[in-house]
């Protein structure tokens, strides 16, 4: 090679080529309305052949086994539909992969989406309206727990069917409680717990009275209930942010005090493990953790409703099932059949008993299996009894993209860095307001 063509010139050429490609791309990409995807093409199936559908889920460990058992029993119960279960990682990872799949056009047919994710996919038109499908498989929406079902309804149309739904619960270690001479129940109020807490702490620092999780999303979920208990909220239904409401700030101050001033609570990267290992005497955690915690605890586990302050407050959470709007009509129907099966009176009970998630059907609670189970597991009864008192979370956490992270990280700064709640939440309020803008635009475009 002679020196007639320098590296620099070669680079220049490449840049020029690339630049042209960028310009070309500006024209492409945009302008394909996602709603087109909702017009599902029909697939002609051979009579007698099975419809195969793909189901993306997010559970591992004993929850994953229960989820796979559900799919297996569905496949064995009939011979029209065959569900292939594919584990995709956490709720977050499942949503990430679904987003990528929408771009690459390799979507599943039915998908488990968490409380903070389904709404974004609804706005993008990626999940299907379910009412017609429900009619075709004779699904009775009236038998679903209304507080859970209504969250997945937009403009009177169902998009997100409750499946693995949970609420926070107050967990305590009965041995430590007895040692401290406390009554065998969860505290009624946070004021009461503040009196109890010093008795639960070990002075050498090896045990705290209470543990907060250090995952931003999770702590923002648990704190949702506390904010309501103190008479505040994250936001109003019209997306007006209320992070600087005096009561919201009071709740944040309380959270900070538990760690910084009173020092009876810690932030734990492994909340359940710390509870099981006795490093914390109590915690708030999802009902979905109940079965696992009871199975692994070496001490009697006590649970109770969340403590009150000014009010009682407890949010719903967890995940539900949605049908992918891009799936062919036949597969959508098959997906709906699976959803109907997995949330039937019987199977909602099977799922609830093996995991600790809420039975999503009203009639499930009256089945003999469930009544027996409640007798044997009064803790689980407590979780279900709390359900009618719960409500859907504020828009700021579940509808603003990344809202859970924004709130959770603000809370971390308050608890971990000891920053003043008023200044941190003022910044959080601004960030949430900014984040809500595109959602409001999308909402207007989607719902008018």
């Amino acid at each position: 090679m002679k020196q007639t063509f320098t590296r620099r010139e070669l680079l220049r050429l490449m840049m020029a080529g690339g630049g042209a490609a960028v310009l070309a791309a500006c024209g492409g990409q945009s302008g394909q309305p996602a709603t087109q995807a909702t017009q599902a093409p029909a697939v002609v199936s051979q009579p007698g052949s099975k419809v195969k559908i793909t189901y993306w889920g997010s559970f591992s460990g004993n929850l994953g086994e229960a989820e796979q058992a559900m799919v297996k029993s569905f496949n064995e119960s009939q011979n029209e539909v065959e569900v292939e279960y594919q584990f995709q990682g956490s709720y977050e990872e499942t949503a990430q992969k679904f987003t990528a799949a929408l771009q690459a056009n390799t979507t599943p047919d039915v998908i488990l989406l968490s409380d903070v994710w389904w709404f974004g996919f609804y706005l993008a038109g990626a999940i299907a309206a379910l009412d017609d499908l429900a009619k075709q498989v004779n699904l009775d929406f009236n038998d679903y727990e209304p507080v859970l079902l209504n969250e997945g309804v937009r403009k009177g149309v169902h998009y997100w069917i409750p499946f693995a739904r949970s609420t926070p619960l107050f967990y305590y270690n009965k041995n430590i409680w007895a040692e401290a001479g406390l009554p065998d129940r969860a505290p009624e109020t946070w004021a009461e717990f503040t009196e109890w807490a010093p008795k639960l702490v070990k002075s050498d620092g090896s045990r705290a009275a209470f543990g907060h999780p250090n995952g931003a999303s999770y702590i923002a979920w648990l704190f949702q209930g506390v904010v309501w208990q103190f008479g505040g909220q994250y936001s109003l239904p019209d997306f007006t942010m209320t992070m600087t409401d005096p009561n919201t700030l009071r709740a944040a101050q309380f959270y900070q005090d538990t760690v910084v001033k009173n020092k009876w609570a810690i932030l734990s990267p492994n909340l359940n493990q710390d509870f099981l290992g006795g490093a914390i005497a109590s915690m708030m955690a999802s009902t979905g953790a109940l079965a696992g915690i009871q199975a692994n605890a070496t001490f009697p586990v006590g649970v109770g409703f969340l403590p009150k302050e000014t009010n009682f407050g407890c949010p719903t959470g967890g995940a539900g099932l949605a049908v992918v709007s891009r799936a062919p009509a036949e597969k959508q129907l098959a997906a709906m059949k699976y959803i109907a099966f997995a949330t039937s009176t019987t199977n909602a009970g099977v799922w609830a008993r093996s995991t600790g998630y809420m039975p999503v059907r009203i009639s499930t609670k009256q089945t003999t299996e469930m009544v027996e189970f409640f007798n044997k597991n009064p803790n689980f009864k407590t979780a279900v009894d709390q359900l009618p008192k719960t409500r859907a979370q504020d828009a700021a956490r579940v509808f603003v993209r990344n809202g859970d992270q924004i709130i959770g990280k603000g809370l971390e700064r308050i608890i971990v860095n000891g920053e003043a709640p008023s200044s941190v939440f003022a910044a959080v309020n601004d960030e949430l307001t900014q984040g809500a803008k595109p959602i409001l635009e999308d909402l207007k475009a989607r719902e008018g």
Partner: protein
Amino acid sequence: MATYSPHQERHPNMLRREHREWLLFVLFIGPNLFLFSVFTYWPLLYNVYLSMVRWDFLRPTMPFVGLQNYIAAFSDPRFWNIIWQTATFTIWSVGLTLVLGLLLALLLNQRLLYRNTARAVVFAPVVMSGAVVAVVWSYIFDPRYGLIDQLLSFVGLRSPNWLVDPFWAMPAVIIVYVWKNIGYAVVIYLAGLQNIPRELYDAARVDGAGAWERFWHVTLPGLSPIAFFLSVTSILSCFQAFDLIRVLTNGGPADVTTTLVFHLYELGFVSYDAGKAGVVAVVLFLIMLALTIVQIRYVERQVTYG
């Protein structure tokens, strides 16, 4: 082609040969150039475009917003915090790796018992998966049942809550990063040490140089090209450190271990903000480009090549 050509008049034969060489050149670089264009240059340029749109990976439209994403990023104090944290992480990690790596290399260059075993042990973490290393270290750091707490308890101290305490989280990440990557520096240093001609040491000895002077005047200058190479590669890989941070702290507590790459991941794949993630990617690219140019232009000049 406005380049210097030694012959004003070209022989036809030579022109043909040149032509053939050109063809050969294109044939050689063609396949790789194609792959690079598709998988490196194109995404790089497309990212510049993405940094100027508002898009959440889901919307059907990507409105062009010009420099708005840049203005939003640069006026956010959090962004500057993250740059500062990235610099802290990089300076400490690279500094410790270079200095401790040199000390370890000098030690392992001595005639020691089980020297090869020791070298293998020091190098082992380099080939381990970052996620695995991070999980193991998160147990070591546990303030209640972790190894560090047990060791500290012998001297009557309690372990800090490494991964949750905003003061200790960054040191914890740096410790693990250095532990994982020091073996690479040691191996490269060792190769460098063995390349320094023995005669130089003999000559220095004859001139009456002590151990310190031999180190200062022979070893260090002899190693400087190696140290330069290591500093470039370590800084670049430090800027890309992700796996350890993701598993150890997930960028927390309260963002203190969030580096640019982690921030990029958060914006892109947690908040789904392609535009803002694009801005971070562009900034990261420019920083790395600038560092590489500075290193090549200025540092290389002061390096003695052996």
